[in-house]
């Protein structure tokens, strides 16, 4: 290898690398040959399949296969870098056990719930699914069917599924796994700003003086962003990083200050900081008076669990009872200004109106935070028993100091699942916004509270398209008549086609399979029977004879095991796609290769399914028990067939013709020059010549005008573009929102304008309740919420004496259905181990690598104890990742949820551990 530098050598093709492995020297002739081979490769831009960071990639294809990938050097997020998952993006398509044929449970040549899985044709599978759907739909109406989708669904897929179920089937029972991930962030955005979007962007990482991580293991969950944050710390000597966390994670290695706190007490810490701001006259009163109001809501709102224990395992009943009555401890009593209630049971009377909130005065806000003195909060929140109270107090003071620092210092707060997967996740999100609003440090370069996103298109698909049970596209709500009307107009639907009642959130749909209120579930790009908490319930429920479960996925998963039909789905570069990342950046790719065998894109499955329904089956009168909404008959949805006829539809038209292959959409012809000659499986399979992804994106775009403005489809596909951050006005993207000079929707002279439109007229009152029910409009203002410290339902006792927290590791994505198919990644972390404090392990006679039982009220599993793990957990706590199908940690987790967002709390289950 004399004349050739090793680095150059690495760049050469497979042929040359093979030669190197075999120990040959490479002749110039061989090298030329190698280069010639690479010359046949076709490179095109793409996006990483995994997390919410949204790294850009370049993908090379040759002879119908992905042969190489690299980080896209022109992508502003990652500038050519990847994490270890991203490095294997090109390999996740080629696992040995890819699903390539539809599989259905059969006996004697026909579907049978108790049969074994048998390969069937697509027509056979879709016909059976349609028949089962119709059986349930006819008997019980639109509330008994549900589509459960994903923050990893493409924008086009989300749009198609959403439109089919909401406009076609007139059901709002669609919910993404973003419910398990970002729902708390969403509700806080709505309540504080009237719009669901981050005001800041990644540029802030380089601009901030202080970066505060709130329960956010960014080093593993947002690998490339962490590299940026670290670089800023390294190159700007005056910048600081603060890690506020319940266990010592990898971020602590870089952080200047680590604050270890007890789970849930971040609610108290935030109020302490707010109190300090007031005490030290640090509140930016000018900003607050001009742009904010204060607000609060009810306290006794339960924990998002079922109000009945009818379906509970015996051991679960005591936890479940806390949904109705909950005993507050000394700290909660003081924090909630009712010290006399310490140790007493409090009826959770406001569980049904957790999202209510009302205007209060600044004085009331002050009264709210008054109990949160340093002494009180330090005693409550100190997480590490080995740390002295004084040392902890000093840290809290210092944290407050960093927030209160002079005006010229810029501060960014970051958080993700640690804040969102929390029984009071919405409250805590709101508290972080409050800290920034009190200082007037929000939505400007280097200043902001930035909610990081877990999944690659939680923002772009789940939230923007609105694949939630309560949402319509672009921040509109199902429950709002004006929003339904606007949607019906854009979608060309008869008035009152859309169901006015909010559908079932994801966990409610799974509970529905158990209690009989939901009988049909179709999942896309999600492995819910591994990823949802308390899975032992849903695993059993899926197999109940009256239920029908369809799982579309690319690989065999546990969810598929309990399904009735498994549909082989195409993966990332096997279809045209678009993702929207955490900083409002929409980015796209073309189809580069074909899916193996008969695997097909989810979009095609939905479109093909829609052909199996005529208008008369779904737009006639439908039962909807319990419906009582102004303008609608009671207990049913009205027939809209007459109105439909007037609009030129006839009752025998299929939903495919009415909703998708419309005359307007068919104007977008395939092939299109933007495709640069590349394939489109959805178009090819449909065979009717319209460019599905482009037509539907252009149909969707008008929803976004006036706030979330997206650019034309072709602009994203421009070779020079590496994603664009919405709103895009006059071809220009927007980095920061709500501040003058940054946000095109803020007029000169306004300074700031919180122009979000939702929940912008609320009653007024004091900390204890509403005093004046007249809704008071607050145009252009943000809300600073007072939210008290509150506990959680499953506290430790002498039996269940360890608190189980779950999470992700850098090496694996979610349930491992893709990353565990890459042998190299699998080797890095073959099994999920139980991180345990060495002292706790020793107490139980356990040592590193021992096998132990981990048991909660909901189940028990075996895990290998790890006392040398990357996460140094505090005594009394244990930690496990959820990627491992062989371990199934979610059989243990509790499905308590934030009552406002219905997002489950995966971080606090009471467990016991003993030697296996």
């Amino acid at each position, binding site marked *: 290898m004399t004349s050739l530098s*090793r*680095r150059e050598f*690495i760049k050469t093709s497979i042929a040359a690398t093979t030669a190197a*492995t075999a120990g040959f020297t490479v002749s110039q002739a061989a090298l030329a040959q190698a280069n010639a081979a690479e010359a046949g490769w076709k490179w095109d831009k793409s996006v990483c399949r995994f997390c919410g960071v949204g790294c850009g990639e370049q993908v090379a294809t040759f002879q119908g296969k992905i042969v190489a990938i690299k*980080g896209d050097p022109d992508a502003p997020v*990652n*500038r*050519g*870098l*990847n*994490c*270890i998952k*991203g*490095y*294997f993006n090109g390999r996740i398509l080629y696992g040995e056990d890819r699903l390539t044929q539809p599989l259905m449970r059969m006996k004697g040549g026909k579907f049978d719930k108790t049969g074994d899985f048998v390969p069937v044709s697509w027509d056979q599978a879709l016909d059976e699914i349609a028949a089962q759907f119709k059986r349930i739909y006819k008997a019980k109406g639109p509330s008994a069917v549900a589509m459960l989708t994903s923050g990893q669904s493409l924008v086009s897929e989300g749009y198609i599924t959403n439109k089919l179920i909401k406009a076609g089937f007139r059901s709002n029972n669609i919910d993404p796994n973003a419910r398990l991930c970002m729902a708390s962030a969403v509700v806080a955005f709505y309540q504080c700003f009237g719009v669901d979007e981050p005001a800041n962007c990644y540029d802030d990482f*380089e601009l901030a*003086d202080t970066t505060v991580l709130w329960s956010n293991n960014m080093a593993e969950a947002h*690998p*490339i962003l*962490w*590299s*940026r944050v*670290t*670089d800023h*710390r*390294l190159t700007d*000597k*005056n910048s*600081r990083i603060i890690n506020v966390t319940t266990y010592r994670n*990898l971020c602590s*290695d*870089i952080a*200047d*200050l680590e604050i270890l706190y007890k789970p849930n007490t971040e609610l108290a810490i935030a109020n302490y900081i707010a109190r300090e701001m007031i005490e*030290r*006259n*640090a509140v930016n009163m000018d900003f607050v008076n001009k742009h904010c109001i204060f607000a609060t809501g009810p306290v006794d709102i339960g924990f998002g669990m079922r109000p009945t224990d009818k379906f509970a395992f015996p051991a679960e009943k005591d936890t479940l009872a806390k949904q109705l009555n909950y005993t507050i401890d000394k700290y909660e009593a003081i924090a909630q200004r009712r010290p006399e209630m310490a140790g007493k049971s409090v009826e959770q009377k406001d569980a049904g109106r957790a999202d209510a909130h009302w205007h209060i005065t600044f004085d009331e806000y002050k009264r709210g935070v008054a109990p949160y003195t340093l002494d009180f909060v330090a005693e409550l929140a100190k997480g590490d028993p080995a740390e002295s109270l004084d040392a902890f107090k*000093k*840290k809290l*003071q*210092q944290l407050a*100091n*960093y927030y*209160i*620092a*002079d*005006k*010229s*210092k810029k501060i960014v707060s970051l958080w993700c699942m640690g804040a969102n997967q929390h029984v009071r996740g919405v409250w805590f999100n709101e508290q972080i916004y409050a800290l920034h609003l009190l*200082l007037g440090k929000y939505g400007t370069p280097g200043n902001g509270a930035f909610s990081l996103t877990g999944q690659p298109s939680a923002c772009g698909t789940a939230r923007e398209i609105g694949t939630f049970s309560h949402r319509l596209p672009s921040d509109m709500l199902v429950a709002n008549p004006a929003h339904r009307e606007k949607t019906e107009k854009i979608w060309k639907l008869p008035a009152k086609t859309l169901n006015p009642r909010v559908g079932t959130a994801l966990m409610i749909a799974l509970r529905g399979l158990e209690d009989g209120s939901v009988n049909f579930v179709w999942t896309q790009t999600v492995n819910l029977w591994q990823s949802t908490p308390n899975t032992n319930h849903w695993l059993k429920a899926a197999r109940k004879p009256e239920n029908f479960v369809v799982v579309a996925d690319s690989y065999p998963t546990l969810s598929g095991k309990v399904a009735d039909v498994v549909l082989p789905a195409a993966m990332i570069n096997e279809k045209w796609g678009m993702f929207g990342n955490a900083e409002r950046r929409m980015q796209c790719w073309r189809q580069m290769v074909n899916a193996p065998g008969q695997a097909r894109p989810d979009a095609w499955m939905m479109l093909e399914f829609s052909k199996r329904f005529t208008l008369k089956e779904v737009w006639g009168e439908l039962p909807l028990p319990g419906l009582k909404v102004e303008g609608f008959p009671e207990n049913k949805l009205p027939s809209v067939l007459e109105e439909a006829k007037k609009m030129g539809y006839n009752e025998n038209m299929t939903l495919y013709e009415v909703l998708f292959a419309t005359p307007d959409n068919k104007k977008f012809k395939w092939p299109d020059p933007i495709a640069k000659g590349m394939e489109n499986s959805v178009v090819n399979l449909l065979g009717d010549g319209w460019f599905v992804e482009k037509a539907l994106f252009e149909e969707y775009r008008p929803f976004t005008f006036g706030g979330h403005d997206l650019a034309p489809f072709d602009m994203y596909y421009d070779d020079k573009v590496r994603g664009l951050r919405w709103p895009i006005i006059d071809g220009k993207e927007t980095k920061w929102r709500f501040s003058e000079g940054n946000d095109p929707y803020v007029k000169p002279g306004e300074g700031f304008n919180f122009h979000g439109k939702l929940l912008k007229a609320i009653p007024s009152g004091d900390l204890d309740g509403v005093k004046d029910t007249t809704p008071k409009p607050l145009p252009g203002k943000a809300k600073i919420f007072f939210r008290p410290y509150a506990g959680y339902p499953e506290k430790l006792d002498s039996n269940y004496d360890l608190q189980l927290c779950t999470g992700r590791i*850098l*090496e694996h994505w979610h349930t491992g259905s893709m990353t565990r198919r890459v042998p*190299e990644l699998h*080797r*890095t*972390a073959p099994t999920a181990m139980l991180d345990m404090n060495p002292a706790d392990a020793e107490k139980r006679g356990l*040592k590193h*690598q021992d096998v132990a039982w981990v048991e909660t009220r909901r189940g028990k599993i075996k895990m290998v104890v790890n006392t*040398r793990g*990357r996460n140094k957990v505090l005594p009394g706590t244990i930690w496990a990742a959820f990627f491992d199908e062989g371990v199934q940690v979610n059989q243990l987790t509790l499905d308590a949820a934030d009552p406002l967002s219905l997002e489950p709390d995966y971080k606090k289950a009471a467990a016991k551990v003993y030697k296996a």
Partner: protein
Amino acid sequence: MSATDRRQFLIRTAQMAGAAACAGVLWSPLVRSQAKASAHALRPPGALPEEDFMALCLKCGQCVKACPFETLKLATVADDAPIGTPYFIAREIPCEMCVDVPCVPVCPSGALDREFTDITKARMGLAVIDPEICLSMRGLRCEVCWRLCPVRDKAITLNIVHNEGTNRHVRFEPVINSEHCTGCGICEKACPTEESSIRVLRHKFVQGRLGEHYSPSSDGDFKLQDVRRGTDIAKELNPGDKKQAAPGAGYFNRRGGRDGIIPGSTP
């Protein structure tokens, strides 16, 4: 054949081969070529220096039987170590560094040092990184070797440097510290590149040696960078802790704090 049976079988095969070798019949040319273990064939923890180890090892297989992870095996004819002796290849099954080190006390001959009890003191080999291939060295967020290292932050530390290429990220470069590396090989096993970019080799194949005529005046250059270098965080975080030269000085100093953190001031 169960795992235990399989192991018994392998041990027996190796022992037979060893016996044949000792007898010097038939095998002698092979034995000569096999007299030394190759660079990546590692000895069990607590093994004496190779020459002593070879002198004492009875090739009995007790340590192999005691290993709960099937890491150790007895060399057979075509293997990388002298026939009948225990060894392991990190990329196949690394040493899991059992806290109670079960392989050592069962050694009847002392080839594995009976005094050896602290597994972190094991020096089975020394990891070495190929810096051109290592993903972390290239700026990717990998660092798998560091995260999995049982003596993380001692045997493998991260040197964090600004990535000039992107000018926006860092490289978390893994660095091996021979003082602490046990040679367990967990890093080599886990490394996700096609050929491992980190390998554990026997010390003599990795370590250099300065000439005896030279005594380095300073090893300051070897000190790793800390991202936080140059800041006395303790002082900054707790300004009140500073020894006060005179009453009131703390108060005045706080107002002029380097970070502009001014407790009690109005904005």
